[in-house]
C-alpha cells in the first residue's frame, strides 16, 4: 500500500512538472531528470510487483481480521476479483475460512465462492468450515439451508463424503422444494466425487423422482442421467407424471427431461413407423435412403396393425406445445423427440418451429441448420415448403452459408431445381471463394441426383472453367470429373477443353483430376493424351505428389493403349518416379513398372494389366457430408461433432415387442394423491396460474365471441375423440383400469387434470355410495374384471368420458341391486353430463348454467340420503362447507356430491372454480381438497387449502408444536371437536381413521406453508394437541388460539 501511494505520488509529481514545464516553455530541460526516474522505476518493476503483491496479500489478511464488516467485505470483493482473473489467492485460505460463519450474508456468500474454488487444494483447512455448514443445514430459512448444501457438496473434499451423503438424504425430504432441488444437484456432485456411493444415491434419486414439484423434476432427471441412466425401471412409475408436469417445469429441466423421455420411449414402445399407410404416405425418395435393416424390420412388422401405446401418445401430445417455447434448446429437444418417436406423418409439425429458430443468433442457427441438414436427407418433404428460408444471404458467415447450401442441395428435386440452379449461379459469383467452391460441389450433387438437369449442370460447370478465379475453376474441374465418370459416352469435347486448361491451372487437385480424366478416356482423345503426357513429364519434378501419381497412371494407361507413341515417355516418367523423394511415389512406380513392362519375371498379372488399369470404374457417389450423421441422436453434441462424445447415450432401436405397459401404472391411491398435490398447487398459486395451462379464471366475457367458442368446442371434441381411440386401445391391450383412468392425465393442462380428477372422484364417490348401501365389503383397490360390459352397453350415446366413468362405477356396482343401479346410473348420467362442462372450462358459457341447477335440485334428496352412508367424512364436509358460509347447506351437500357445480349455479362469473375431491388414499382415509373462490380468499386470509394428511410423516420433524390440554366434557365428541376447530381456525378436516384422533390441515395463503393440526383425545378428558407447520410462529399462534376453544365449552 505504501509503495502504491509513493508511486502515485511520483506520477502526480511528474504530471505537475510537465504542466509547469509547458507553462514555462522550457520543456526539454525540466523533463529530463524525471524521465530517468521513470526508467529506473521500470527497471525495478519486477521487484516492485512482487513486493506489491505480498504487501497486498498482507493487507487483505489484515482486512479480513478486522472487526468491521465493511473492511472484510472489501477484502472479499478484492479476493473474488483475483479469482475471476485467474490469479492465485490460495494463501489467503486460513484468513478467509474464518469468516465462513459471518453474519453478513454478502461476506458469507463471497466466502462460499472462495471455498468452492480453493477447498479442493486445502482440504485440511477446509474441514474447519464444515461445522458451519452443518449448522446452516438446520436453519429455518430455506435459502440458507439450500446454499449450505450447495457449498458443502461443492467443496470436493473426499473426507466429508459421509457427511454429504447424510445431508443429501436429509435434504431430499426437506419441506422446501428448493432445498430438494439442491439435493438433486448435490447427488451429481457427490457421485463425481465418490462413485462408490452410487447405490445409496440411486435410492435418493428414486425418492426424488417421486417428487411432484416441478422445481425438482428437471434436476433429479439430470442426476438420473448422470448417475444411473441405465436404470430405466426407475422411470416407469414416474413416466406419466413427468409427461404431465413437463409444461410447467422450467425450460432447462424441460430439455433434460425430453431427452431422457426420448431414450425411455425408444425402449418401451414399438415403432410407429412400420404401418402400411405410412409406406404410402412416405416419399418415394425416402425408401431409397432407408437402410436395409429398416426395410427388414418393416417387412417383419408389416402384417401387424399398429396401435400406438396411449403412453406414447401422451408423450407426443404433451411435448407439442413446447415447440412454441422461446428457448431454442427446448424447441430442438421437442423436434428431436418427434423425429425419433413420432409417426412419420406427424414429424412434419416440427419444421415450422425449427425454421423459426433460424432468425436467432448465429450459434443457434449453426446447430439448428446442422440438424435440419440431417433431417432433410431422410425426409425431404418436411422442409420443402420452407425452401426459400434457406436462401443464402451475403451477410451470413461462411459456416452458415455452407450449411444452408447443404440443405438446399438436399431439398433439390425436379420441381425446384431450376430455381435452385439460378440461385446457385449467384452463389458461385460470391466473393467468399470457399463458399463458391462449395456451391460448385452442390451443383455437382444436384446433377447426379436429378438426371433431368445433368446436362444443364455440366454445361454450366464447363462455363465456369473459364472463370477468372482459380479455386472456382479447380473445383469445377473436380466436379466435372466426377460427373463425366457417371456418363462418359459423349464428352470428348469437354475433355479436350480441360486438357487445354492444364497449362493454366495450378491447383493440384484440379490438375490431378484432369490427368485422371485424360488417362481414363485416353482412347477418346487419342491425339491429345500423349501430348499431355509429354508436357507433364517435363514438369514432373515440380508437381505436387498428388499430380505425380496421376502422371504415373496416365503414363501407364497410355503405355497400354498406345505404346507405340508413349513407350519412351512412360519409361522416362517411371524413371523419374523411381528416384522421387516420396516413397509413395517410388512404390507406385515400382508397382506400375512390374505390371506393364513385360520382362521375364513378370507373372501372370501383366497379361491382365490393361484390364486392371482400364477397368470400368464405378462412378463416385456425390454424397452429403451429413449422410452418416443420422446414427447419432439429433440435437446432441455427438451429432454436431459427428463423433461420439464422452457420455453419449445411445438411442436404442425400437423393441419388436413392447414391454409390459402395466409397469407404468401407478396405484390408485398414489394417483389420487397426485391429484391433490396438483390441486393443492393450483390452489396455492392462484390467482397466478400456471404456465401454458388452461385458464381457471373468470370467464372473459368480452373477448370470447361465439366464433371462438365454437372453435374451441370442436377442438375439445377432437381431443375427446383422440382419447377415445387411446382408450379403446388400452382396453384391447388388456391394460388395467388405472391406465384408462390416468389417460385422463393426458390432458395437457392442469385445469383439465383437475376436472379429470373431479370426474374420477365422481366415479369413486358413486362407487362408495353404492358400497355403503349394499353393505358389501369391497376394497377400493381396483380390480381388473371387465364386468362393465353391461353398463357400457346401456349408456352408449354419451361422450367418451362418460363411458369411462361407466366402467369405473360399473365394476364396483356389480354386487348392488338393480334398483340402486338404476338410480346411480341416473346420477352418473347427469354428473357426467356436467363433467363435460367442467372438462372444457374454456367453453364454459353462462348459457349452460341454468341446466346445472335444476338437475341438482332434482337429485338432491336421494343424494343426501346416500350421503348418510358416508358418515364421518360426509358430515365433516357439511361442516366445513357451512363454515364457509355464503351458501345454503343443501347446496353444499349437493355440490360436494355432484362435484361442485357450485360455481355454475351462483357465482358463475366471479368464481374461479371450486372443486371437491374424494378419493380413497388407503382403506378409510379420504382426501379432501377444496379450492376456493378468490373473493372468499381475500376475506379470510388465515387459511384456505384443505389438504390431506398423507404427508403427515414429513411434517413430524423439527417444526412441531404440541401441548396437552384439558378438554371440556361437552367437547369430547368428535363432531363437536371438528366443528370447533373448523370454526376457530378455518382448517380442513382430514379423516384420520381412528375415533380418538382428529386431523386437520391447511395452507397459509401467503407463503403456502403447510399446517397440520392433530387432536388426540386421551383418557380423563385430556387431549394432545399437535401442530406441525413450517412456520413455527404461526404454529404457536394457532396453538394459543385453539387451546381455549377446546378447553372451554
Amino acid at each position: 500500500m505504501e509503495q502504491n501511494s509513493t508511486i502515485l505520488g511520483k506520477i502526480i509529481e511528474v504530471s505537475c512538472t510537465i504542466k509547469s514545464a509547458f507553462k514555462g516553455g522550457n520543456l526539454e530541460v525540466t523533463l529530463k531528470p524525471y524521465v530517468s526516474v521513470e526508467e529506473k522505476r521500470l527497471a525495478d518493476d519486477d521487484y516492485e510487483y512482487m513486493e506489491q503483491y505480498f504487501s497486498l496479500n498482507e493487507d487483505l489478511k489484515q482486512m479480513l481480521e478486522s472487526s468491521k464488516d465493511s473492511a472484510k467485505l472489501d477484502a472479499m470483493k478484492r479476493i473474488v476479483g483475483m479469482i475471476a482473473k485467474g490469479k492465485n489467492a490460495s494463501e489467503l485460505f486460513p484468513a478467509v475460512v474464518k469468516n465462513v460463519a459471518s453474519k453478513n450474508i454478502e461476506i458469507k456468500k463471497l466466502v462460499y465462492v472462495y471455498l468452492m474454488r480453493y477447498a479442493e487444494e486445502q482440504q485440511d483447512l477446509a474441514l474447519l468450515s464444515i461445522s458451519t455448514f452443518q449448522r446452516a443445514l438446520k436453519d429455518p430459512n430455506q435459502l440458507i439451508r439450500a446454499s449450505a448444501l450447495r457449498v458443502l457438496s461443492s467443496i470436493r473434499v473426499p473426507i466429508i463424503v459421509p457427511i454429504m451423503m447424510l445431508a443429501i438424504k436429509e435434504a431430499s425430504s426437506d419441506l422446501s422444494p428448493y432445498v430438494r432441488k439442491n439435493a438433486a444437484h448435490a447427488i451429481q456432485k457427490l457421485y463425481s466425487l465418490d462413485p462408490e456411493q452410487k447405490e445409496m444415491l440411486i435410492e435418493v434419486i428414486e425418492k426424488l423422482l417421486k417428487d411432484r414439484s416441478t422445481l425438482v423434476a428437471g434436476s433429479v432427471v439430470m442426476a438420473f442421467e448422470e448417475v444411473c441412466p441405465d436404470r430405466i425401471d426407475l422411470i416407469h412409475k414416474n413416466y406419466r407424471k413427468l409427461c404431465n408436469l413437463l409444461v410447467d417445469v422450467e425450460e432447462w429441466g424441460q430439455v433434460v427431461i425430453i431427452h431422457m423421455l426420448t431414450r425411455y420411449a425408444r425402449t418401451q414402445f414399438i415403432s410407429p413407423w412400420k404401418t402400411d399407410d405410412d409406406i404410402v404416405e412416405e416419399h418415394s425418395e425416402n425408401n431409397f435412403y432407408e437402410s436395409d435393416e429398416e426395410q427388414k424390420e418393416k417387412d417383419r412388422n408389416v402384417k401387424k396393425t399398429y396401435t400406438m401405446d396411449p403412453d406414447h401418445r401422451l408423450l407426443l401430445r404433451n411435448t407439442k406445445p413446447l415447440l412454441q417455447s422461446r428457448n431454442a434448446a427446448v424447441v430442438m429437444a421437442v423436434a428431436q423427440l418427434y423425429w425419433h418417436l413420432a409417426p412419420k406423418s406427424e414429424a412434419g409439425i416440427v419444421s415450422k418451429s425449427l425454421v423459426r429458430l433460424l432468425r436467432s443468433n448465429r450459434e443457434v442457427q449453426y446447430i439448428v441448420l446442422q440438424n435440419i441438414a440431417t433431417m432433410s436427407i431422410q425426409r425431404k418433404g418436411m422442409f420443402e415448403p420452407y425452401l426459400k428460408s434457406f436462401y443464402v444471404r451475403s451477410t451470413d458467415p461462411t459456416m452458415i452459408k455452407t450449411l444452408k447450401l447443404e440443405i438446399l442441395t438436399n431439398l433439390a428435386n425436379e420441381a425446384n431445381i431450376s430455381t435452385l440452379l439460378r440461385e446457385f449461379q449467384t452463389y458461385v459469383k460470391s466473393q467468399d471463394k470457399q463458399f463458391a467452391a462449395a456451391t460448385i460441389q452442390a451443383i455437382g450433387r444436384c446433377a447426379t441426383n436429378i438426371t433431368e438437369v445433368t446436362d444443364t449442370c455440366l454445361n454450366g460447370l464447363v462455363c465456369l472453367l473459364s472463370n477468372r478465379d482459380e479455386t472456382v475453376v479447380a473445383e469445377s474441374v473436380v466436379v466435372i470429373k466426377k460427373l463425366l465418370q457417371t456418363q462418359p459416352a459423349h464428352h470428348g469435347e469437354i475433355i479436350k477443353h480441360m486438357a487445354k486448361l492444364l497449362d493454366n491451372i495450378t491447383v493440384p487437385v484440379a490438375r490431378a483430376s484432369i490427368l485422371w480424366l485424360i488417362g481414363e478416356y485416353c482412347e477418346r482423345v487419342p491425339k491429345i493424351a500423349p501430348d499431355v503426357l509429354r508436357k507433364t513429364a517435363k514438369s514432373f519434378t515440380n508437381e505436387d505428389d498428388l499430380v505425380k501419381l496421376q502422371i504415373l497412371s496416365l503414363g501407364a494407361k497410355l503405355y497400354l493403349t498406345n505404346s507405340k507413341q508413349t513407350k519412351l515417355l512412360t519409361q522416362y516418367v517411371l524413371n523419374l518416379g523411381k528416384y522421387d523423394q516420396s516413397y509413395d511415389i517410388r512404390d507406385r512406380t515400382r508397382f506400375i513398372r512390374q505390371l506393364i513392362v513385360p520382362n521375364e519375371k513378370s507373372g501372370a498379372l501383366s497379361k491382365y494389366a490393361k484390364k486392371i488399369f482400364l477397368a470400368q470404374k464405378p462412378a463416385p457417389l456425390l454424397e452429403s457430408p451429413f449422410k452418416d450423421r443420422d446414427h447419432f441422436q439429433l440435437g446432441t453434441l455427438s451429432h454436431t461433432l459427428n463423433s461420439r462424445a464422452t457420455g453419449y447415450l445411445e438411442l436404442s432401436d425400437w423393441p419388436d415387442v413392447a414391454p409390459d405397459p402395466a409397469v407404468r401404472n401407478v396405484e390408485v391411491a398414489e394417483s389420487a394423491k397426485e391429484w391433490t398435490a396438483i390441486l393443492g398447487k393450483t390452489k396455492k398459486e392462484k390467482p397466478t396460474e400456471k404456465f401454458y395451462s388452461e385458464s381457471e379464471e373468470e370467464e372473459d366475457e368480452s373477448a370470447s365471441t361465439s366464433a371462438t367458442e365454437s372453435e374451441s368446442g370442436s377442438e375439445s371434441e377432437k381431443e375427446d375423440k383422440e382419447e377415445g381411440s387411446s382408450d379403446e386401445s388400452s382396453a384391447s391391450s388388456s391394460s388395467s383400469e388405472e391406465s384408462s383412468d390416468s389417460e385422463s392425465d393426458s390432458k395437457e393442462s392442469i385445469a383439465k387434470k383437475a376436472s379429470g380428477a373431479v370426474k374420477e372422484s365422481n366415479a369413486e364417490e358413486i362407487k362408495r355410495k353404492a358400497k355403503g348401501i349394499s353393505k358389501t365389503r369391497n376394497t377400493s383397490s381396483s380390480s381388473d374384471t371387465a364386468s362393465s360390459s353391461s353398463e357400457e352397453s346401456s349408456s352408449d350415446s354419451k361422450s367418451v368420458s362418460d363411458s369411462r366413468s361407466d366402467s369405473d362405477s360399473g365394476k364396483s356396482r356389480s354386487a348392488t341391486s338393480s334398483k340402486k343401479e338404476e338410480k346411480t346410473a341416473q346420477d352418473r348420467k347427469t354428473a357426467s353430463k356436467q363433467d363435460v362442462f367442467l372438462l372444457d372450462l374454456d367453453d364454459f358459457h353462462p348459457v349452460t348454467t341454468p341446466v346445472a341447477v335444476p338437475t341438482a335440485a332434482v337429485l338432491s334428496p336421494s343424494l343426501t340420503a346416500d350421503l348418510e352412508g358416508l358418515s364421518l367424512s360426509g358430515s365433516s364436509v357439511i361442516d366445513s362447507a357451512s363454515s364457509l358460509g355464503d351458501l345454503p347447506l343443501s347446496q353444499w351437500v349437493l355440490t360436494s356430491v355432484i362435484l361442485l357445480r357450485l360455481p355454475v349455479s351462483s357465482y358463475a362469473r366471479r368464481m374461479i372454480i371450486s372443486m371437491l375431491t374424494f378419493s380413497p388414499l388407503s382403506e378409510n382415509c379420504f382426501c379432501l381438497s377444496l379450492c376456493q373462490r378468490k373473493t372468499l380468499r381475500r376475506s379470510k386470509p388465515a387459511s384456505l387449502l384443505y389438504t390431506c394428511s398423507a404427508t403427515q410423516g414429513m411434517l413430524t420433524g423439527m417444526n412441531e408444536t404440541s401441548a396437552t390440554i384439558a378438554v371440556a366434557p361437552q367437547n369430547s365428541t368428535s363432531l363437536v371437536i371438528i366443528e370447533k376447530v373448523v370454526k376457530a381456525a378455518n382448517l380442513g378436516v382430514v379423516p384420520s381413521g381412528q375415533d380418538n384422533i382428529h386431523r386437520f390441515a391447511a395452507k397459509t395463503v401467503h407463503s403456502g406453508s403447510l399446517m397440520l393440526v392433530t387432536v388426540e383425545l386421551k383418557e380423563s378428558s385430556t387431549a394432545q394437541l399437535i401442530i406441525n407447520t413450517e412456520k413455527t410462529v404461526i404454529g404457536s399462534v394457532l396453538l394459543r388460539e385453539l387451546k381455549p376453544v377446546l378447553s372451554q365449552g
Partner: protein
Amino acid sequence: MIHSLFLINCSGDIFLEKHWKSVVSQSVCDYFFEAQEKAIDVENVPPVISTPHHYLISIYRDKIFFVSVIQTEVPPLFVIEFLHRVADTFQDYFGECSETAIKDNVVIVYELLEEMLDNGFPLATESNILKELIKPPTILRSVVNSITGSSNVGDTLPTGQLSNIPWRRAGVKYTNNEAYFDVIEEIDAIIDKSGSTVFAEIQGVIDSCIKLSGMPDLSLSFMNPRLLDDVSFHPCIRFKRWESERVLSFIPPDGNFRLISYRVSSQNLVAIPVYVKHMISFKENSSSGRFDVTIGPKQNMGKTVEGVVMTVHMPKAVLNMNLTATQGSYTFDPVTKVLTWDVGKITPQKLPNLKGIVNLQSGAPKPEENPSLNIQFKIQQLAISGLKVNRLDMYGEKYKPFKGVKYITKAGKFQVITGREY
C-alpha cells in the same frame, strides 16, 4: 454440464474465469485461439470445438467470446442458449455487456454466475428472481451500501423461485400502473435487380414494459390473430388459451420482457415499403465505375419512412468513391470497403439520390459481381402486416392501469441485389 466459463475479449485476453466443478486450466483456451485463427473472421469461429479432453462451446456477443468448457455429452443448444441468457443478464444488470462493465462489476458478475448455475446446471435464470437475489448496481445503492454496510445480496428465497410463476416477483408496487406493448415488425426481404421480390417475410415481436402492482392477470387480444402463423411465447403465456381462443393470457413478469415473437403467415403478400433504383457498373479495363442509387417510398399507407440507412459492401477492388448525396451524408471506409449512406427521412416530393464515380484499383480485374445493398428503415405507427391489438383486459387487481400500444415497422435483413438477374 457446464464445467467452466472463460470470457475472452477480441484481443485474446482471458479477463474472467469461473469454474463450477474442479478447476480447468486456462490453457484449454489455446484450442479456441487456434480455431479462431483458422476462422479468420470472428463470425466464422465454430461454436463447438472438440479438444482431446473437453469440448468448447462458445458464443460471440458484444465483442466478447463466452467460452464454456464441457466434459460430457450435452445438447449444444442448451449451452448456447444459456450463454446468451448470461449475456442478456449482464446487459440487464449493467446496461451493456462489455468488457469494462464486467470488469467493473466483477463481484456482481461472480455472484450472478454462482446463482445462475449450480454444478453446471442452470438454477435461476429468470431476471425477476435474480434481481431479488442480487440487487442490480445503481449509484444510489452503492452509496447507501458503502455508508450503511448493507449488501447487494438478498437473504430470503424469492417467492417466485418456489411458485409456478418464477418469472414474477412478489410484492410489486407502483404508484403509476402502466402496461406498454411495442409491436415491432421486421421485414426480411431479398429484392432482385429488376425490383421484384424474391423472398419476403415479416417477423414480429411484441416487447412489453409492464409496471403493474400486485399479481395482475392480463389478456391481450388481437383484431386479426389469424395473421400470426408461428409464434413463440414467453413462458408466462397460457398456451391452451391461445390454442382455443387466440388470446394471450398471462401473468406478466415485472419490467421489460419479450412477450411473443411471431412470423406472419407466408401466404400474405408482404407490402414492401420502399423501392430502390440503382445503376452500378464497372467498366472493363478501366479504373472507374459508376454508382447511382435512388430510394423512394412505396405503399407506405400514408406513413413516412424514416431512419433510412443504406450500407453496401463494395468489392475488394474498389479504392475510393466520389459521390454526391442529394440528402443525408455518406461515408466510405477504404479498409473494410463499406459504404454507408445515412439518408434519414424520405419525402416523396424529393427522392434522395446518391451518385458519383467509383475508383478502382488500377490493374485489378473488374469486379465480378455488383454489390448488394442493405437497407434499413423505420416506419412509426404502422405494423406492416396489419396486425392490430384489439384490447387489453386486466383481472385480479382492482386499480385501472394505463395501457399503451405502439407499432413500429423496421427493415430486418433487407437486401437489394443489383447483380442478380432472374
